[in-house]
């Protein structure tokens, strides 16, 4: 059911088990123990960075199927995307599966974008079981969006560190302990910033727009959620989002955090302003936050995946970097 201007309420979309596979830095971070599979080597047993990211995605899918105790033949659709050109990770991993596939791109908002599309398919009654997944890899992203690490370009404090992680979750129509009760679709918001080394602040206005629309559409306030998380706004974008809400007299400080700041210990791990990438929001949400919902720390959370719609070619042509954010409400059923 449509709610307000840009939201949808789902009445029978449930979350099965999710699985996360990560690289070494995420393993050593504060949430390392929440991930299903981790690698000590950034190559993840593969020969190239892209193949390493494919391995992570494959691990996440396999672990997800095993944890849900279902075969790939029982999945109606896989919705996935990543940050590489032509979203190659999903495309190539899905060669090996007999699952219908939709590739999507929303930069780092892809995880929730996948949830929205999958939930729509299930709530409409067409499909029963949908997998939504996404991945990112530090080295593929550095090359895609910045410079290869060997180039040795200087990195300012505002830069985020692309996480090496893949997360996959099962959406289904048979009741489980968690449900996806509603979503708010974001609009492309251009804050007119053009520094590719400070994406957190470029995305904060998009996160603000979506969260504000969410509160309006659902007629809720921050207190109605035990936690509000954004995907990868960084230390600087987080501060900017809090400030934007203060300007309209809403205080989110006590229940708001950012996945990129949860995934790493910013002071010990040399990740500059925090973690980023599609895998960041997916790993933290599917690995850590779902566990916290299931162990009754939280009852209802708002996950806002934030994407900087960055393309190096168009930025070199003096264009700005617009952002987008999509929000999903995940809640525990029963007390």
């Amino acid at each position: 059911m449509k709610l307000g201007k840009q939201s949808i309420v789902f009445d029978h979309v449930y979350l099965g088990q999710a699985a996360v596979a990560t690289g070494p830095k995420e393993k050593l971070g504060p949430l390392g123990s929440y991930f299903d599979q981790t690698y000590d080597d950034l190559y993840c047993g593969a020969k190239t960075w892209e193949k390493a990211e494919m391995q992570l995605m494959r691990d996440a899918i396999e672990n997800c199927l095993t944890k849900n105790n279902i075969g790939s033949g029982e999945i109606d659709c896989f919705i996935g995307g990543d940050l590489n050109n032509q979203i190659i990770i999903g495309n190539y991993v899905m060669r090996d599966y007999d699952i219908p596939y939709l590739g999507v791109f929303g930069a780092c908002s892809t995880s929730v974008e996948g949830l929205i599309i999958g939930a729509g398919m299930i709530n409409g009654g067409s499909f029963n079981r949908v997998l939504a997944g996404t991945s990112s890899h530090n080295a593929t992203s550095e090359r895609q969006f910045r410079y290869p690490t060997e180039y040795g370009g200087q990195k300012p404090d505002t830069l985020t560190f692309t996480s090496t992680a893949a997360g996959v979750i099962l959406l289904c129509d048979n009741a489980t302990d968690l449900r996806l009760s509603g979503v708010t679709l974001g609009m492309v918001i251009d804050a007119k910033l053009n520094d590719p080394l400070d994406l957190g602040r470029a995305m904060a206005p998009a996160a603000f727009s979506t969260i504000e629309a969410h509160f309006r559409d659902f007629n809720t306030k921050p207190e109605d959620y035990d936690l509000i998380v954004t995907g990868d706004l960084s230390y600087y974008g987080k501060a900017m989002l809090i400030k934007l809400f203060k300007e309209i007299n809403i205080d989110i400080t006590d229940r708001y955090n950012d996945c990129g700041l949860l995934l790493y210990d910013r002071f010990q791990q040399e990740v500059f302003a925090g973690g980023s990438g599609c895998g960041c929001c997916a790993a933290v949400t599917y690995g850590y936050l779902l566990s916290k919902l299931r162990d009754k720390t939280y009852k209802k959370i708002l996950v806002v995946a934030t994407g900087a719609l960055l393309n190096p070619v168009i930025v070199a042509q003096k264009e700005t970097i617009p952002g987008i954010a999509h929000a999903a409400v995940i809640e525990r059923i029963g007390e």
Partner: protein
Amino acid sequence: MIYLMAFLVGGTICALGQIILDVFKLVPIYITSLFVSLGAMFDTFGLYDKLVEKAGAGATMPISSFGHSLVHSALEKAEQVGYIGILTGIFNLTAAGIAASIIFAFFIALIFRPKG
């Protein structure tokens, strides 16, 4: 004295680069190109040569020296063989550096693989 001059001149060139990088938010490749161009320009009227004379490695180590070498060798060859020398002589002084970087990169790539 030349050591002090090397430190001061080299340091000033690098500090300028850092300030431009931080203030104008240019990507690193622009800074590199900018300093190559500046070095080339300063070679006109032999300005860069005077700097090299005074500061030694302080002037030859930064990338601006690459621009200086390009123009310098092109003009030198042009004096010997005419205008065609601008084209044939441009890499005379830098050929060793360019060839060395390609050859060393090749051998390093054979032995190591990138870590990040």
